[in-house]
């Protein structure tokens, strides 16, 4: 067999845009300016081809004759090393590491076979010629370019010079050898060492419990048994900290939790459902892979948001890619399988202008992280054919070592398919992608703190997804569901088969035939098969009667489905490799045997410190407003949004960008998942990490209020909004850190019950801290700010009643709804003054909030509001500016009548305070009376009107506080992230 190389270059007259992009990136990262670069991509093809055959493949399949040219030769041939830029260039190849998913290579294999002769193996690569005769690079410069720009060594290999191997096939057949760990004789140090060396990430008490279990059995465990326990007991799978015992203390006294989540967030939902009685619209909460609520007479909605932070820190593209891929499998694995209908993605990064020289070792530049994460989500979400309709991006330097990637998905499921259960003796069917060594230890790894060493230690936990495999699974899964060909389904997420089979068989028992699992390549041990987190896999439970037809259907769509075991009613988890038993555990021990975690949690409120305000007269706030609009959290995210397909599936109603030029910041997205129906789903979010620095209780209520405001602002019915919590926190073994989380959870309970807004699912990601040794050898730790994301899913009976935030017509009236308080704490106004801790944090008056949401909804659904925008980051002034430039109209406002809790409030407070539960709305003069009637019991006031000018003018007592052109304001808002 021969190894051929096909290099593909831009054709003559074509711009080398890949090189141009690379040059721009190099300049952005401060690496290199004006370096001559030429880029090719290509294929390594191993097989029995001659030169003519391979040239035919290159011309007819791999390259495009109109815009590309090829160089084809056997690996090692000189003709492959010639730079288009002449002599003196350094040649670098970048390839996915062996075993890393290479979707293009997989597809190319399929297509090559169709030409008549299959290839033994294919790999893709990129080829870079850096420099030229007058710009040659030093070894050190090359190192930097490879490391910072061209490759990520957690998934890619770099070859300097020509490709230096002559075959692609790898993996040697596995020879079965059971591994037993002598745990019974270990002392405590030995147990700790075993946990660490085996990447089990279990505590001493947990290790002792395992030891005692096997001492009682009078035998030692196999590696598969230890791994099964470690996966099931991992923070990622069991949420042992938050679902554990916590002794909490704050200024109100002490409180003891047996199960913190159950007694706060879950308890709120239980209470709300009780109050709703037979009007309860929750269907399934906190039990399946995603929460389920009622939508129409025939369909329910499913919603889940997950995080994929640790993998994204190491490999942003792959981490985010598999993050969205993973969360899509949650609705697919809920009930009997839901159809995903839209995505929501929220990211937290360090500022992209971070100095490259200041990066701690082991971190990637935030700009590279952001570009990688956005591309990763884009490529997976778009390929799945799921519109990404909602999102947000937050910036804070504390996300440098731990960027956050929240990925969410909404699904649609028929009522009768909303529940599924494996039956005794059902077959365990593995479907979708094959199992490889990818993602080993993802579940335990994601529960650990990151260090500058993580990259080398846990590289295997990072993966690349293959969206098309998942799309094929989705298509055939829904067909199989509708044909009633299985009894239960779940996804293989963290922990792989170990978690999926463990969960499905928890109440029954399971026997798994590990040697039957389809593998990507030879050489996997039975334990690797069991805990691999290879992507795009799901597990079904099907009876012997269902299986033949199920197998046929999957084959017809080219999706692999293999029986790998049986749910045997034994109450035991039994793993086999051939005839040998490699694990035999009591399901009860696995799921209930973990010793409860008991933790201390404390919270001490910070004293309120003052905010310095400018003199009451003689100042204007034009510059403050432009600075806020141009601050990263507020600035337009169009660079991100436009890379997502937000209209696929044909149900788009309110897009993420709205207004006269389709570029204003919409409050929430609306989609119509049933094309024959007018009923809409509304998706929004709320998050305020800055408020958490002042008080996590009010941060949490503010996040819920913001998510609700956004939803209600476009027309959602506030009595049917379901919310999700995603806690991303620092190291919760520290009582103060855990205390700040418990406080937020208590707030979630209080707010949800008061609003009647149920939490239906949630997830947490703890220990988001990054440690490294600085230049002086001193250990430094960066902890993320308390980051609670609230995602809201609302409903609107008829989408034609929805409104957007862009101003519509001159002479319409502008009203402020809600009361403004002196709450500049955590605001963008104080942030830009460099004051991170001063001022009062915004609070929520929950009873008033509930009434306000209801009244706004009445006014919108009866057609009395023309446009509506919630007041959030940057307060009233920012909202007014956004509404004006999105509508291409002017606005004149007076602060004098703005409802305020202070008499003669300071202009800065009225303009920029971020008090909750407020809206700025546009009302036609003829609808003013009806609007005011709807808002009768809610603080509101007419504060101005829309003009046909091109300025935003805001006055106080006749003095101009802000006077700025909408084009300038828009430019300030659009330019910072206009990449």
């Amino acid at each position: 067999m021969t190894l051929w190389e096909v290099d593909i270059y831009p054709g003559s007259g074509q711009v080398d845009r890949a090189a141009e992009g690379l040059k721009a990136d190099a300049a952005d990262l401060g690496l290199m300016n004006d370096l001559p670069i030429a880029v090719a991509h290509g294929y390594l093809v191993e097989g029995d081809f001659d030169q003519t055959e391979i040239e035919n493949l290159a011309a007819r399949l791999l390259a495009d004759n109109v815009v590309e040219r090829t160089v084809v030769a056997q690996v090692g041939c000189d003709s492959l090393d010639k730079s288009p830029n002449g002599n003196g260039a350094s040649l670098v190849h970048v390839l996915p590491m062996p075993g890393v998913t290479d979707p293009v290579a997989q597809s190319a294999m399929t297509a090559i076979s169709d030409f008549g002769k299959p290839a033994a193996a294919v790999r893709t690569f990129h080829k870079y010629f850096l420099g030229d005769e007058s710009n040659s690079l030093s070894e050190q410069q090359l190192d930097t370019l490879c490391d910072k720009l061209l490759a990520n060594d957690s998934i890619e290999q770099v070859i300097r010079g020509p490709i230096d191997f002559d075959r692609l096939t790898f993996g040697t057949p596995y020879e079965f050898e059971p591994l037993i760990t002598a745990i019974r004789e270990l002392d405590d140090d030995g147990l700790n060492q075993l946990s660490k060396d085996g990447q089990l990430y279990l505590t001493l008490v947990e290790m002792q419990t395992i030891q005692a279990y096997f001492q009682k059995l009078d035998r030692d465990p196999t590696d598969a048994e230890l791994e099964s326990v470690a996966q099931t007991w991992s923070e990622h799978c069991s949420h042992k900290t938050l679902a554990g015992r916590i002794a909490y203390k704050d200024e109100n006294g002490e409180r003891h939790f047996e199960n913190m989540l159950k007694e706060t967030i879950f308890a709120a939902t239980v209470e709300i459902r009780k109050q709703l009685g037979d009007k309860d619209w929750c269907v399934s909460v906190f039990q399946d892979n995603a929460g389920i609520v009622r939508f129409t007479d025939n369909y329910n909605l499913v919603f889940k948001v997950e995080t994929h932070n640790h993998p994204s820190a190491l490999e942003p593209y792959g981490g985010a890619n598999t993050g969205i891929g993973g969360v899509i499998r949650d609705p697919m694995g809920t009930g009997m399988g839901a159809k995903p209908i839209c995505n929501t993605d929220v990211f937290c990064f360090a500022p992209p202008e971070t100095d490259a020289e200041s990066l701690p070792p082991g971190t990637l530049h935030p700009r590279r992280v952001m570009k990688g994460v956005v591309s990763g989500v884009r490529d997976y979400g778009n390929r799945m054919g799921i519109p990404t309709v909602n999102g947000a991006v937050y910036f804070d330097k504390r996300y440098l070592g731990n960027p956050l990637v929240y990925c969410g998905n909404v699904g649609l499921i028929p009522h009768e398919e909303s529940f599924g259960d494996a039956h005794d003796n059902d077959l365990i069917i593995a479907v979708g992608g094959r199992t490889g060594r990818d993602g080993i230890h993802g579940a335990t790894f994601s529960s650990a703190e990151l260090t500058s060493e993580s990259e080398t230690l846990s590289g295997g936990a990072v993966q690349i997804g293959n969206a098309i495999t998942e799309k094929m699974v989705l298509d055939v899964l829904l067909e199989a569901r509708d044909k009633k060909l299985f009894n239960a389904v779940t996804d293989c997420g963290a922990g792989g088969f170990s978690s999926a089979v463990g969960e499905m068989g928890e109440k029954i028992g399971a026997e798994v035939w590990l040697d039957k699992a389809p593998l990507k390549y030879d050489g996997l041990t039975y334990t690797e098969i069991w805990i691999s987190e290879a992507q795009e896999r799901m597990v079904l439970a099907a009876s012997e009667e269902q299986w033949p037809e199920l197998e046929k259907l999957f084959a017809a769509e080219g999706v692999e489905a293999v029986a790998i075991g049986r749910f045997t009613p034994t109450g035991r988890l039994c793993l086999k490799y051939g005839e040998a038993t490699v694990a035999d555990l009591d399901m009860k021990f696995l799921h209930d045997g973990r010793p409860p975690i008991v933790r201390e949690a404390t919270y001490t409120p910070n004293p309120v410190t003052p905010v310095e305000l400018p003199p009451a007269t003689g100042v204007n706030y034009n510059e403050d407003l432009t600075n806020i609009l141009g601050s990263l959290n507020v600035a337009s995210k169009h660079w991100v949004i436009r890379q997502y397909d937000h209209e696929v599936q044909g149900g788009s109603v309110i897009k993420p960008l709205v207004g006269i030029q389709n570029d204003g910041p919409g409050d929430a997205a609306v989609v119509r998942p049933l094309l024959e129906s007018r009923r809409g789903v509304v998706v929004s979010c709320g998050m305020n990490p800055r408020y958490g620095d002042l008080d996590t209780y009010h941060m949490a209520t503010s996040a819920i209020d913001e998510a609700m405001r956004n939803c209600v602002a476009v027309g959602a019915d506030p009595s049917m909004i379901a919310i999700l919590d995603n806690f991303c926190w620092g190291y919760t073994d520290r009582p103060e850190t855990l205390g700040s989380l418990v406080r937020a959870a208590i707030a979630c309970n209080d707010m949800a019950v008061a609003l009647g807004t149920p939490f239906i699912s949630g997830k947490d990601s703890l220990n988001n801290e990054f440690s490294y040794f600085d230049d002086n050898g001193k250990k430094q730790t960066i902890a993320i700010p308390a980051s609670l994301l609230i995602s809201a899913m609302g409903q609107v009976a008829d989408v034609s009643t929805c409104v957007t935030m862009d101003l519509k017509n001159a002479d319409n009236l502008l009203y402020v709804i809600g009361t403004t308080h002196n709450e500049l704490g955590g605001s963008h106004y104080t942030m830009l003054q460099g004051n991170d801790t001063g001022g009062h944090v915004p609070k929520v008056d929950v009873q008033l909030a509930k009434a306000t949401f209801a009244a706004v909804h009445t006014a919108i659904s009866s057609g009395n509001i023309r446009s509506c925008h919630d007041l959030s980051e940057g307060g009233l002034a920012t909202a007014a500016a956004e509404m004006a430039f999105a509508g291409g109209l002017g606005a004149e406002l007076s602060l004098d009548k703005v409802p305020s809790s202070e008499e003669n409030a300071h202009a800065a407070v009225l303009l920029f305070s971020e008090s909750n539960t407020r809206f700025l709305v546009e009302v036609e003069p003829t609808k003013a009376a009806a609007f005011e009637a709807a808002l009768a019991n809610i603080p509101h006031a007419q504060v101005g009107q829309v003009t046909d000018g091109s300025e935003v003018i805001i006055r106080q007592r006749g003095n101009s506080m802000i006077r700025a052109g909408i084009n300038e304001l828009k430019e300030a808002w659009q330019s910072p992230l206009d990449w």
Partner: protein
Amino acid sequence: MATPKVLILRAPGTNCDHETAFAFEQAGAKADRVHLNRLLENPQLADEYQILCLPGGFSYGDDVAAGRIVGSLIRHHLSDTLKKFQADEKLILGICNGFQILIKSGVLLPDVDEGEMPATLTWNNSQKFEDRWVNLAANSSKCVFLDGIDEIYLPMAHAEGKFVAESAETLTALENAGQLALKYVNADGSSDNVEYPANPNGAQMNVAGVCDTTGRVFGLMPHPERFIDPTHHPRWTRGEGGTVGAGLKMFENAVNYFG
């Protein structure tokens, strides 16, 4: 009027099949979503249909190049089937990825030399996927799908949509033959200096859609099925959605062709 039957061909990674079928049904056709494997197993299946539609998506993930792998499968296995379909004066529509497949399979524009395409759809100048609405003008008297359409506003959502011909002569020949049927124009309808983002990908001569010499085979990058309801329009809350989505007309034209 007879109800024409539409074969909506879905391959691994196709993702606009449901809404495209819905659009055809709204227009009065009967649409079936059929997996490519079924047609490969039994090419005669095509005989039952009057319209073949290749909807949008990412067939085979856009791996190798958008539309290339299905294009290659068609060249190897379905070329005669589709030739017969065309000879029977039936209609073929390719939207977005479907257009990419029609181009790369040689179905829409015959090869200049065996396997040598006269034109291609390649990476946007921005080198990335983009979703935005574009103004379009029809530029063909023969394209069945564009009958009665002068200007239309539709969303595009693609990464590889830049139309490039293999030579200036080919481009001119296509233009003279009325085959460059749909073009990006400025918001005011003018066709001079159509720059990014009005021309969202850098297509030569602002080409957004191409038909064959008969006008019965048509491929376009924008998505007409995404504007068949007034609330699809990005500014419907400003009263700009009209009473019916303008994209529906293309599907109605296809149905009416058999009327």
